C-alpha cells in the first residue's frame, strides 16, 4: 500500500466542492504528479497547478469523470478515467466519461503531447479516485457509527460486514461531500487492480461507428459561414496582391479579403510555429461554393526568401555530414585512435525526406468573435498556448477567449500547432459572424510543420574479436539536429562520439509522431545490423552483448544515459523468445529495439517471399511501458505505430521544387493501404509493475529498423534512403 499526500505545501491537489443537486464532487489536479523540468515549469502559466479534473458521484451511484485531456486517437478518454475508477472501486459500467472544455469556471489548463498523458496523470488520477473512496467510507462510518477501517468497498458498494450494513455509493454521496479531504490517502496495491490491466472498449466507439458528430469539421451552428484560406504556393513566397472582384460576386460568396494572421511585433507562442504571416480568406455560405471561388481566385505572390528545392536540402545536409562540430554533443574515450587500431571499420549514411502529418481530418476550427467574447471550438492539442495568441491578435483579454475541444481526427503532432485557430478568430472578427474555417486537403498538405528531412552518418570500429570498440555518429536535420547523444549505444562502447548539426531552412517543420526517433531509430538499428554482420555475430545477440556491457561495466556515468539497459535487454529477450528467433522460419527476418518516451520496444519483422518490396507477413513486438492500463487499446496503439513506421518509411515523401510542395493530395503523396499492411501482429507486454510510461509513439521508430533489416535478408540490398520504395540500392557482396 502506498500513501500519497493530497497537497504539497500550500498547493492542494484535491478539493471537494458543493453540488446543488446533491452528490459528491471532487476536483483534482490532473497533471499534478508530473515531475517537470525547470524549463517546462517556467513555460507554464501559474494556473497550471489549479484543479482541472473533476469526478462526480451522483445520488444514483453513477460516476461522471470529466477528462480534461484532448483525445487525438490515443484513447486517453477511456484509459485515464479507468485509473480514477480503479481507485474509486466502482464498476466500469457505471462510469460516464465527458470531455471537459477549456477555460470555464472550473477547468483551467490542459495539454496533450509527447506520449505523456498517462505517465504524468498516473498519480493524481489515482489520488482523486482514492480520495473520493476514502470520503465515501468516512460518510458511511458516521452513518453506521462504525470504524471506517472496517468498511470495505467493491463495485461501488460500501459494506460493513460485522454490522451487516451495506450501501451504494450514491446513497452516501451527499454526506461524503461534507467530509474533510484527507491529508493523505492510501492507494491500492497493484495486485488488487480489477479495472487497470483489463480490456475496456473505446468510450466513443458507438458514436464513431454510427457517424455521430464528434469532430471539429462536424460543427455546424446557426448562422455559421464557411471560410477557406489561400496561402502562398511555395515556401519563401509572400502575398503581393489580388483582384477579387469577380470572385466576390460568385454564388454564395460573402467576402474575399487579404489579412494578417501575425502582424509585425505580435507575441507568438511555440504553438504558432509554422504559421504564415499573411493569407487570403474566402468566406461563403457553403464549403463547395468556397472551394469553387478558391479555384477561380488569382492571387499574386512575390519571392520573400530563397526558393529551396529538395536537391538543395539533400546537398546541404550531406555537406554538414562532412563537417565536425565545434563541441561534440557527447564524447567518451578517443574514437580517432580507436578507429586507427580497429580490425574492421563499417561506415554508412542514411537519409529520410520531409513528411506531412496528413491527419485524416484536415485542419479546421469554428470561431465566433464578438466584442464581448471569442468562442472557439475545434481540434487543437495546445489550447492554453493558442488562447494567448488569439487574445493578443484580437486585442482582447485572455479571460474573454473560450476554447473548447472536439475529438480530433488524428494528431501525430500536427495539432500541437494552432495558427489555424488564430486564422479562424481573425476571419470571424472581420466578418462579425460565426465562421468555420476549413482547410482543403491541399491546404493542409502544403502548409508545413513537416517532419524534418534528415541525414546521418555512422562509423563503427570492431576489434579482431568482433567487439565494438568505437562508434561515431554525426547527424543533421532541417531546422532540427536529430541526435539523442545519451541514448544507446552511448554507455556501451568505450570510444563514442556524437555530433549534431541543424540546417536552417524556410520550409517549416514541427513535431511529427516520435520526433527525431522516427528517423534515427531506423537508421541506427539498420546500422547495428551492418556492424553485427561485420563482426560475424547474430544481430540480436550482438545487441544483447552491448546491453550486457552497459549493465555490467558502463562507460561514463550511467546516470548520464537516457535508458535502463536491463529493461532494454528485457524487451529484446522477450521478443527473441516469442518470435523463436534463431529457428529457421525460412522467411527473411529483421530485429530492432528502441527506447523513447520512457518506454522500451523490440520487434521482429518477418517478410513474405518474393519481390523487390516484399510485404510484412508477421510482427512480434515486445513492449515495456510499465503497467498497461487498457491492453486492448494499448495493443491498438502499438499496432498502429508500427504500421505508421512501416508505411512512411516505405512509401511516403514530401519533396519541393523551388519551395513548392510537389505532393498536394493523396494521389501523389502515398500512404500505406490495406493490401500493404502487415498481415499478422502479436504484441507482448513486459509485466513488471513499474509506473506507466509512453505508448502512443514508441512502437513506430524501431519498426523502420526491423523492416530494413528484414528487407536486407529478403533482397540482399541495404536500404539507406527513405522512402524505400524509391530506393534502388545495389546488391551487397
Amino acid at each position: 500500500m502506498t500513501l500519497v499526500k493530497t497537497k504539497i505545501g500550500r498547493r492542494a491537489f484535491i478539493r471537494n466542492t458543493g453540488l446543488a443537486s446533491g452528490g459528491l464532487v471532487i476536483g483534482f489536479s490532473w497533471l499534478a504528479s508530473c515531475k517537470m523540468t525547470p524549463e517546462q515549469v517556467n513555460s507554464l502559466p501559474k494556473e497550471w497547478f489549479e484543479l482541472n479534473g473533476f469526478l462526480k458521484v451522483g445520488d444514483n451511484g453513477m460516476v461522471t469523470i470529466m477528462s480534461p485531456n484532448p483525445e487525438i486517437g490515443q484513447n486517453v478518454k477511456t484509459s485515464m478515467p479507468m485509473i480514477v475508477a480503479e481507485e474509486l472501486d466502482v464498476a466500469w459500467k457505471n462510469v460516464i466519461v465527458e470531455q471537459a472544455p477549456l477555460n470555464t469556471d472550473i477547468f483551467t489548463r490542459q495539454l496533450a503531447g509527447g506520449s505523456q498523458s498517462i505517465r504524468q496523470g498516473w498519480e493524481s488520477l489515482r489520488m482523486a479516485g482514492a480520495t473520493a473512496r476514502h470520503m465515501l467510507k468516512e460518510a458511511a462510518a458516521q452513518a453506521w457509527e462504525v470504524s471506517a477501517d472496517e468498511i470495505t468497498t467493491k463495485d461501488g458498494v460500501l459494506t460493513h460486514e460485522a454490522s451487516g450494513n451495506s450501501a451504494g455509493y450514491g446513497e452516501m454521496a451527499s454526506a461524503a461531500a461534507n467530509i474533510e479531504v484527507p491529508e493523505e490517502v492510501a492507494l491500492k496495491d497493484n495486485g488488487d487492480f480489477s479495472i487497470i490491466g483489463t480490456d475496456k472498449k473505446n468510450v466513443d466507439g458507438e458514436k464513431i461507428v454510427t457517424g455521430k458528430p464528434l469532430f471539429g469539421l462536424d460543427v455546424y451552428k446557426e448562422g455559421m459561414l464557411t471560410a477557406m484560406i489561400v496561402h502562398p504556393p511555395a515556401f519563401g513566397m509572400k502575398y503581393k496582391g489580388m483582384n477579387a472582384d469577380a470572385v466576390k460576386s460568385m454564388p454564395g460568396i460573402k467576402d474575399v479579403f487579404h489579412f494578417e494572421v501575425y502582424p509585425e511585433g505580435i507575441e507568438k507562442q511555440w504553438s504558432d510555429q509554422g504559421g504564415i504571416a499573411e493569407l487570403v480568406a474566402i468566406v461563403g455560405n457553403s464549403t463547395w461554393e468556397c472551394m469553387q471561388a478558391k479555384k477561380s481566385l488569382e492571387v499574386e505572390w512575390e519571392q520573400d526568401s530563397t526558393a529551396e528545392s529538395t536537391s538543395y536540402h539533400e546537398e546541404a545536409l550531406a555537406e554538414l555530414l562532412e563537417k565536425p562540430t565545434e563541441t561534440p554533443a557527447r564524447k567518451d574515450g578517443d574514437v580517432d585512435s580507436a578507429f586507427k587500431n580497429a580490425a574492421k571499420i563499417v561506415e554508412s549514411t542514411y537519409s529520410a525526406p520531409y513528411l506531412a502529418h496528413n491527419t485524416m481530418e484536415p485542419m479546421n476550427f469554428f470561431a465566433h468573435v464578438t466584442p464581448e467574447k471569442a468562442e472557439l471550438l475545434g481540434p487543437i492539442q495546445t489550447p492554453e498556448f493558442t488562447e494567448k495568441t488569439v487574445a493578443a491578435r484580437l486585442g482582447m483579454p485572455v479571460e474573454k477567449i473560450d476554447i473548447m475541444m472536439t475529438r480530433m481526427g488524428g494528431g501525430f503532432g500536427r495539432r500541437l500547432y494552432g495558427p489555424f485557430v488564430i486564422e479562424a478568430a481573425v476571419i470571424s472578427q472581420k466578418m462579425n459572424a460565426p465562421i468555420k474555417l476549413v482547410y482543403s486537403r491541399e491546404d493542409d498538405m502544403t502548409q508545413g510543420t513537416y517532419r524534418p528531412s534528415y541525414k546521418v552518418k555512422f562509423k563503427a570500429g570492431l576489434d579482431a574479436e568482433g567487439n565494438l570498440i568505437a562508434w561515431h555518429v554525426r547527424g543533421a536535420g532541417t531546422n532540427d539536429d536529430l541526435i539523442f547523444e545519451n541514448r544507446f549505444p552511448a554507455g556501451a562502447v568505450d570510444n563514442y562520439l556524437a555530433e549534431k548539426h541543424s540546417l536552417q531552412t524556410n520550409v517549416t517543420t514541427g513535431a511529427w509522431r516520435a520526433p527525431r526517433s522516427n528517423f534515427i531509430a531506423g537508421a541506427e538499428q539498420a546500422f547495428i545490423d551492418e556492424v553485427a554482420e561485420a563482426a560475424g555475430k547474430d544481430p540480436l545477440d550482438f545487441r544483447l552483448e552491448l546491453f550486457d556491457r552497459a549493465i555490467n561495466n558502463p562507460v561514463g556515468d550511467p546516470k548520464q544515459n537516457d535508458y535502463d539497459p536491463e529493461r532494454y535487454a528485457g524487451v529484446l529477450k522477450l521478443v527473441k523468445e516469442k518470435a523463436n528467433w534463431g529457428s529457421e522460419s525460412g522467411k527473411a527476418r529483421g530485429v530492432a529495439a528502441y527506447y523513447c518516451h520512457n518506454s522500451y520496444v523490440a520487434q521482429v519483422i518477418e517478410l513474405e517471399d518474393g519481390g523487390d518490396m516484399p510485404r510484412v507477413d508477421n510482427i512480434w513486438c515486445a513492449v515495456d511501458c510499465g503497467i498497461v492500463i487498457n491492453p486492448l487499446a494499448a495493443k491498438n496503439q502499438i499496432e498502429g505505430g508500427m504500421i505508421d513506421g512501416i508505411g512512411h518509411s516505405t512509401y511516403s515523401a514530401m519533396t519541393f521544387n523551388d519551395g513548392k510542395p510537389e505532393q498536394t493530395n493523396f494521389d501523389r503523396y502515398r500512404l500505406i493501404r490495406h493490401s500493404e499492411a502487415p498481415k499478422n501482429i502479436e504484441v507482448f507486454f513486459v509485466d513488471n509493475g513499474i509506473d506507466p510510461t509512453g505508448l502512443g509513439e514508441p512502437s513506430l521508430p524501431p519498426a523502420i529498423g526491423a523492416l530494413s533489416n528484414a528487407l536486407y535478408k529478403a533482397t540482399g540490398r541495404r536500404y539507406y534512403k527513405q522512402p524505400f520504395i524509391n530506393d534502388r540500392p545495389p546488391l551487397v557482396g
Partner: protein
Amino acid sequence: MATFTLNINGTKQEVDVDPSTPVLWVLRDHLNLVGTKYGCGIAQCGACTIHLNGTATRACMLTVSSVGNSEITTIEGLSENGDHPVQKAWLEVDVPQCGYCQAGQIMTASALLDKNPNPSDEEIEMAMNGNICRCGTYTRIKKAVKLASKS
C-alpha cells in the same frame, strides 16, 4: 442553383444547390448528415464512402446532378440502432483510434459483404484498398470484416 430531390436513407430530401455540388457537401452542409467525412476531395482516401444503390461510392466526386433517383445510404442510415453486423464487429474488435475514417471503412466493408458474404483476405484487401486509415488500424479492420462475415 437548382432543386434536387434525393432519396437518402429511405427518405426523400429536397435541396437547392449548384448542380456541380458533390453529394458529400450536400450531405454535410445542407442536410446535417455529417457522418460522411471529407478527407481528400479527389476519391483517393475513402473517408466519404456512401452506398449508391448498394455500391460503395465516393461522395466527394459524385455530383448531386448525377444521382437522379438512385438510393443513397449513409453511415447514419446503415442501421436503425447502430446494430448492423459490421458496426457490431467494429465495436467487438475495438477498431477505431481517432475514428475519423471509420464511417467510410464501414460503408465499404458493408457493401463488400452484401455482394460477397464470405470474402477471402485478398478480396477484403482489394475491396478496402481505397480507404486510408492514417492511424493504421488495418489489421483490426480486416479482423472485424471477417467477424462480420461470420454473422
